[in-house]
């Protein structure tokens, strides 16, 4: 195997030399000793186009600047409709601003996260790093037009958000040169911990359960149940389970059943109730009722084609009634000796729709 691998690699190099004039191929083999012909080196322009991430140490942050005032103008035009004039809106997304204090800016810990007084956590209460705001706004905002903001617009928007949180003053101009100073004022900059058991698979978990097998709890206390008014808050659960089999869904449009339904499922919806949902319409009937097993649009199969039937009965009075009877009772002799079996399972309406559809040439 080793020898084979080596000779393939050599063959790859040899081929590359031969085809050096072919730029695409030459790129394709660059740096690829193991899998010749697979992949190519990225151009600097390509890396620049896609590698737009900004890290907490500001690696990747483009040069530029924007003022709170500029940010407010852009915000009101592009952001306020979802996030509210001051980033406070809870209508569409969770609020961006609110819940932080000047004291938090000093300590780097958002006090309202511990005291439970704030009804909802806002972005500014949580985000520890200003790079996160910059990266995400530039990468993914506005919601319905991501990647449409310039770096300067992004600086301006970050400045505006931070000014609402009183992290920076109203006349502030945020730039790549002062953003590290702003980081030192982020209200929740000291609020994160990685000391837990979930970042590496080898880490130790923070809790563990009990292996007790018998007489484990003296008294089983039910601590929480779904309130009665929420019984159908997720719709009718009967419609979210099979209508057959041992595990049906409870009909949550009604109060709980008084007693066990019994093996026959008395009072419950049954599988036949869904059968009526099969697609209707002449073309669907033609396929689903297997007319198409014997009849094709233009070619004779077992039976005549739709086109031939339509041509034969064109402009004949009584053709619909005649063919409806044939479909219902079956027939033979008109198109050959192979009989058409009766299709008595069809309703009159479906038969009529099918016959009219066939007589129209299947249109």
């Amino acid at each position, binding site marked *: 195997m080793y020898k084979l691998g080596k000779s393939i690699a050599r063959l790859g190099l040899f081929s590359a030399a031969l085809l050096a004039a072919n730029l695409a191929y030459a790129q394709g083999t660059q*740096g*690829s000793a193991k*899998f010749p012909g*697979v*992949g*190519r*080196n*990225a151009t600097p322009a390509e*890396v620049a186009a*896609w590698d*737009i*991430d900004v890290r907490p140490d500001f690696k990747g942050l483009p040069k530029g600047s924007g003022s709170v005032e500029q940010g407010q103008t852009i915000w009101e035009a592009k952001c306020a409709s979802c996030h509210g004039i001051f980033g406070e809106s809870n*209508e569409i*997304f969770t609020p961006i601003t609110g819940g932080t204090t000047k004291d938090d800016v000093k300590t780097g*810990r958002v006090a309202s*996260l*511990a005291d439970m007084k704030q009804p909802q956590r806002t972005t500014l209460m*949580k985000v520890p790093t200003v*790079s*996160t705001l910059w990266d995400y706004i530039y990468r993914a905002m506005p919601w319905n037009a*991501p*990647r449409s903001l310039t770096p300067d617009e992004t600086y301006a928007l970050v400045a505006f958000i931070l000014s609402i949180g009183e992290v920076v003053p109203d006349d502030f101009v945020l730039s790549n040169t002062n953003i590290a100073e702003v980081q030192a004022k982020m209200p*929740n900059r000291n609020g*994160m911990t990685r000391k*837990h058991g*979930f970042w*590496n*698979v*080898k*880490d130790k978990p923070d*809790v563990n*359960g*009990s*292996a*007790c097998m*018998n007489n484990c*709890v003296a008294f*089983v*206390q*039910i*601590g*929480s149940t*779904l309130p009665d008014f929420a019984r159908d*808050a*997720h719709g009718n*659960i*009967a419609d*979210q*389970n*099979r*209508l057959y089999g*041992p595990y*049906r*869904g409870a009909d949550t449009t009604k109060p709980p059943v008084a*007693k*066990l339904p019994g*093996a026959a499922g008395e009072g419950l919806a049954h599988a036949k109730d*869904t*059968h009526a949902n099969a697609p209707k319409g002449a073309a669907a009937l033609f396929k*689903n009722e297997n007319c198409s097993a014997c009849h094709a649009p233009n070619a004779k199969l077992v039976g005549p084609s739709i086109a031939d039937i339509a041509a034969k009965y064109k402009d004949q009075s009584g053709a619909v009634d005649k063919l409806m009877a044939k479909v219902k009772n079956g027939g033979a002799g008109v198109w050959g000796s192979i009989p058409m079996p009766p299709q008595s399972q069809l309703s009159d309406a479906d038969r009529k729709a099918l016959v009219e559809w066939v007589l129209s040439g299947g249109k």
Partner: protein
Amino acid sequence: MTKKQIELSSQDVSFVEKPTNRARLVKAPEHFVSQELIADINANGLDENRRGFLRKGFLSAIGGAAAGLSAPMAFAAGEGDPAILEKQEWQTTLGKNVATMPYGVPSIYEANLIRRESPGLTRVSAASVAFTPLQGLFGTITPNGLHFERHHQGWYNLNPETHRLMVNGMVKNARVFTMNDLMRLPSVSRTHFIECGANTGLEWGNVAVPTVQYTHGMLSCCEFTGVPLKVLLEECGADLKKGKFLLAEGGDGSGMTRTINLDSCLEDTIVAWSMNGEMLRPENGFPLRLVVPGVQGVSWVKWLRRLEVGDMPWNAKDEAVHYIELMPDGTHRQYASIQECKSVITTPSGGQQLLDKGFYNVSGMAWSGRGKIRRVDVSFDGGNNWRQARLETPVLTKSITRFNIDWVWDGSPAILQSRAVDDTGYIQPSIKTLRNVRGTRSIYHNNAIQSWKLDSNGEVSNVQVG
């Protein structure tokens, strides 16, 4: 108890099933079985001896009914079940053509089992969740059309012909791969679960949703095929000594980014294009997604377009604003990624309605982001007493394991729970144990034991005990 002992023979099954189907005509089976035997079976399962008792019980009951003629006869005048005696449409007419449905879909009778949103959970459906109907699934594999959905800025059908994967950062050569390139590389196929970090997150404080679809339905399990991440990174000359972190970036509007801990995930992460034998579904990242076994779903970046090797985590929006866990002291746990050992009974489960007393195969799923499932115990009395369930094979690492346990329900109220143990020895905790350490505002990584209360009317509901 050996496997052989607890498997029912076909003969037993027919004895068990007959009365269940004919409850109006013949008494349900539990009436023929003594309370002592029910308790014995529930404590010890079925073995040869106990099955013998069961057979005897049914036989004598049926014989008694026939001999005594006091009970209504099964079928008047020697007739029988219309489902057998009458010819059915599908026996007497021609069936459908092949390829009537060129891409097959489930039976119309399965129409109720679909992905669903939880009303009021999110306000925009392009940044929302659709839950998998676990209450109707069997085995371990999630059908592709039922795999849960979670998007941050909507989903797309990306053109695979113009899709590119770029690998850059601390690599010798930043490289670009087309789908043509990637699908030539040596691939692996592995079965893994994917669970959103916020699965069961609504239940930290109290019971909030009615069914297992909404409590646990941000969980799926597929066989994924793709090229191992390590192969790709080595191919690009990655500096894996200094570069301990990887940024995965999606091609969607959110440019979804997550930091992958290479110390933990380098060995088993896959750059995948296939789920369950076909290409990824667009809702699940067609044509390329990252598969990070054991790690929360948000890191399995969909529509994967870029991998960057670096020497520190990125603090992206979904690792510095969301997917962080608030602890009682006001700190947030950041980069909590591993999905710990967890299990849930899927049948019977919340919102379901049992028809009658008698025998049930109680069934559920168990999984661990740290390895394989070692054992699952089931309680029918709210956690006071437990019995070991049987694990169905194969038991795979960081994958769903199906468990089953025999149960004869005597019709009295019960609280069903399951408790999984993984091969690190970690035992799935109670919600109380979790709350004692993490409070109720964490949102993420709730792997508590789930309780389902079964009332005497056969209705099952979501409850929390303790």
